[in-house]
């Protein structure tokens, strides 16, 4: 065994390489559309990675993660909408006609998602267990219904995004550019989250998941740390939502629906909870399953349901856990 090269590291490295060369492989296979499909997977993986931080490491089962995903998407959608229409963005103390500039939209998307996550987290973390699950669901549903009712942005029908975000040196209408932007974001997010979970902050989260009472008795105000983790996860979901809005050129309340939250949770589990890397694997497995199964039968959900149940019951470590084994550095 070469020093430092464990099975775990090999798998992670292989994933990185695959991520980097995928468009080339797609072209070689004569199916450039694969790159587009891969972009979708990568975008979802970003949101899922943030969710793994709070579910897998902090032990907080949030059933409202899609709310922050949707908020990020709406931030981009609303700013783009007003920019195209040359109308004023409502509720601001100054007159502003939105923006098509990605360097303006994206930070705002992240900020909006983070603010809502901080507020929702502060209230939700006053509860635990199943109540936490229910209250995060409730807040997400409130936002969902709010956007459904908002006639300004077409309510349930959602907003079309007529022009993708502009970035210097990038053309988001170029499939390769979009893919590499998303992949770069994913790599950065995973790198950041891996640093976080191995840091002192991460130790506190992991200890809190195992025995909250003990950690509090040692003198650690656990709720504070969880709130920060919740906010970080929300911000990352907002970033993912901003990318997704561009990808589908649309934003609607369905992006905030609890079934979307459920989908994110499924990806966390399928990939392997408590690994961060599992986020990409989970997205590949779920979205990949959806694609392949729907080619076989239009009733693919008939198989997805039982597969999910079986994974939950018997294969908890998920696909990444199966491939890579235990993290030697954890």
């Amino acid at each position, binding site marked *: 065994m070469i020093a430092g090269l464990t099975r775990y590291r090999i798998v992670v490295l292989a994933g990185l390489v695959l991520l980097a060369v995928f468009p080339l492989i797609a072209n070689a296979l004569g199916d450039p559309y694969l790159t587009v499909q891969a972009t979708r997977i990568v975008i979802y993986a970003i949101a899922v990675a943030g969710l793994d931080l709070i579910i897998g490491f902090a032990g907080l089962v949030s059933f409202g993660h899609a709310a922050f995903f949707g908020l990020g998407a709406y931030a981009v959608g609303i700013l783009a909408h007003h920019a195209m229409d040359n109308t004023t963005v409502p509720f601001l103390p100054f007159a502003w006609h939105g923006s098509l500039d990605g360097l303006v939209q994206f930070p705002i998307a992240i900020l909006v998602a983070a603010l809502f996550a901080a507020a929702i987290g502060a209230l939700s973390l006053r509860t635990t267990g199943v109540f936490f699950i229910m209250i995060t669901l409730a807040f997400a549903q409130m936002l969902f219904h709010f956007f459904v009712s908002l006639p300004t942005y077409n309510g349930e029908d959602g907003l079309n995004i007529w022009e993708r975000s502009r970035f210097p040196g990038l053309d988001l209408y170029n499939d390769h550019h979009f893919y590499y932007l998303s992949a770069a974001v994913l790599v950065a997010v995973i790198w950041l989250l891996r*640093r*976080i979970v*191995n*840091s*002192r*902050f*991460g*130790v*506190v989260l*992991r*200890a809190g998941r*195992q*025995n909250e*009472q*003990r*950690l*509090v*008795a*040692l*003198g*650690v*105000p*656990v709720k504070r*740390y969880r709130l*920060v983790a919740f906010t970080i996860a929300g911000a990352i979901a907002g970033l993912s939502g901003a990318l997704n809005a561009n990808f589908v050129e649309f934003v609607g309340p369905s992006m905030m629906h609890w079934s979307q939250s459920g989908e994110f949770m499924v990806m966390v589990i399928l990939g392997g909870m408590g690994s961060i890397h599992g986020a990409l694997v989970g997205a590949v497995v779920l979205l990949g399953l959806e694609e392949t199964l729907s080619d076989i039968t239009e009733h693919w959900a008939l198989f997805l349901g039982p597969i999910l149940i079986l994974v939950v019951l018997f294969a908890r470590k998920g696909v990444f856990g199966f491939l890579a084994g235990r993290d030697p*550095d*954890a």
Partner: protein
Amino acid sequence: MTTMLKAEGLVKRFGGLAANDGVSLDVAEGSIHGLIGPNGAGKSTAINLLSGEAKPDEGSVTFAGSDITALPPHARAERGLQRSYQVASLFHEFTALDHVALALQTRAGHSFRFFTAARRDASLRDPARTRLAALGLEGLAERRIADIAHGERRQVELAMVLATDPTMLLLDEPMAGMGRTEREAMVTTLGALKGKVTILLVEHDMDVVFALADIITVMVKGQPIATGDPASIRADAAVRTAYLGDMA
């Protein structure tokens, strides 16, 4: 004699039952203060009231001169009031070394550090190893709590709590379920703390209590019925009737 911890008139009711009915305690700095009594006397409730995990219906708690009655558990621990549990309360996926390192980490103020890997942080790991070794526990350093025995877990819990350099310890039956050698080791460890760390020791093992304690309070049915040095407690008629029987 300076008082480190003072409880006055603590009352805690569960439904119609007063588990603590007017509990007052005075624990002198640097002393080992024993708290004994039959099962159901309310000793664990008293510990929970002192640690902040339970809120009293009446009464107050003063620690190092300040009123801490309204303080939540983590704030009390930050001030140096640490505890152990009847069943060792630990992090089962972590190793013994992880526990002591975590304790040292809590002394650093806050843990909002996101980039340095904690497991490779020598400023935490090296002192943690030293502390484990000082208690003869270096063999447990890399063992996960889930994989070690009950008695060893107790020792790890004590090591962890001592690593926070506490001012005072609330120990809830630390000898329970321990074998003879382990018991003797713990008595030595606790004895060595006298004068440096104030200890309130809830115990059923009378030999241990009478050997270690400077002062003993006896609780029966939610109330203290006698307080004094071991000899006077042994001789106290009310205590004998209520609790010790033929043991003294």
